[in-house]
């Protein structure tokens, strides 16, 4: 059964940036888009086990810091080689300036 987990404060993330979040031994990446919407994905790139939180957010895209693989972090869609497998996304909501992520 899924549950909403408090991941961070809304201001913990700069606009157009990403931070790491760890829960139950799993890594996640929490994003704040340039227009202040929040998103969450698995923490690692699907190509190799590199943390996406060290990458670069450009608009709605996260680029992996190791091999420059790119994902649309709003949908999880892989945008071309070397990433060929979409990254898993998670629902996010913001309540009272706290960012919650819905985990299974």
């Amino acid at each position, binding site marked *: 059964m899924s549950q909403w987990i408090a991941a961070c404060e809304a201001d913990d993330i700069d606009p157009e940036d990403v931070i790491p979040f760890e829960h139950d031994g799993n890594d996640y990446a929490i994003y704040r888009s340039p227009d202040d919407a929040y998103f969450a994905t698995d923490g690692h790139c699907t190509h190799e*086990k590199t943390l996406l939180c060290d990458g*670069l957010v450009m608009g709605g895209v996260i680029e992996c*810091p*190791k091999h*420059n693989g790119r994902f649309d972090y709003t949908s999880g869609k892989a945008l071309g*080689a*070397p990433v*060929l497998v979409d990254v898993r996304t998670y629902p996010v909501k913001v309540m009272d300036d706290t960012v919650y992520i819905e985990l299974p």
Partner: protein
Amino acid sequence: MSSPVARERLERYSLTGPENQAAVDAGLAGGAWFRSAVPRKRMKELMRRSDYPAVRDTIIWLGLILAFGGLGSALWIVWHSWWAVPFFLAYGVLYGSTADSRWHESGHGTAFKSRWIAESLYELSSFMIMRDPTTWRWSHTRHHTDTLVVGRDPEIAVMRPARLAKLLANYFGLVDVPVAFSLMFRHAAGRLTADEADYVPESERPRVYRTARVHLAVYAVAIGLAIGLGSWLPVVLIGGPRIYGGFMLQVYGFTQHAGMGENVLDHRLNTRTVKMCRLNRFLYWNMNYHVEHHMFPMVPYYRLPELHEEIKHDCAPVYPSLWAAYKEIVPAVLRQLRDQEYYVRRELLPGAAPFNEPTPLNDGRARPLPAATAA
């Protein structure tokens, strides 16, 4: 027929040989590499892209290629003058050598903010440097994952012992060009090499086959024109620069890793940063900052000098010139002909983070070849 040493060397460095699994078992494949600590805020500044610097540099680069090629052609066609030669030489170096750094930067996708510009330059420079854009993208991806890990990295240019005749012949493309055409024919026939099959996913392979057919068609037109016109000019302009203008690719390229550690997880042990003059840095698109590039591949070439300033305290002293680098490279490579355990191990600056050497295997030494040891 190859000697036992040559066969064993190639088997060791092959991605389908036993060293691949040995590297996996030792934890070297996809390992955790050392990275200097750079604050996230500063890193974001350094990673930020802009189209302006790379578009400006690309316009200058392409403009010079067209200018030198055009002037050389005019001098040759109109006046039949040997003064065309220096112009063709400049054209050849820009085409046959410096396309390598454009290929590299556009392949990483960091040089431009606009993805379509990076991809367009990647396709063009891949053709110029005679590399399939897809297989080489995956090859370079592996090179970054497993830099100089024997049996894993397909881009180890200087093996232990070095294939000296090959390295020297390649100053004139005499190995790379025949190999490139052999691969084009293989790919056009719908086949990959065993090594390529190790790192190119199935879904990417049709693109390899299509591109090879297009590249071969262009070369066929150039050769056809040369025969039809009774002139070398078409092949001097297309394909030929990879032979007569490829020497600077080797001059720059060997500075990256030659003679340094294998099977390590710290780019300060297997990679060089070399100071170069402004002209060389333009021609090489700052790839002389190679430790920085490997440690942080997200940083575009025009921010690498700033990144160098951020992390230089964590590294060995920089090589002050190409000459200084070669004074180390040549003796090291020659010594490795008889002593494959030797490698260049530099002292870090005082206060630098220690080398990342997590297991006894990761000490930079290649395991010696049995035949070479017995000889």
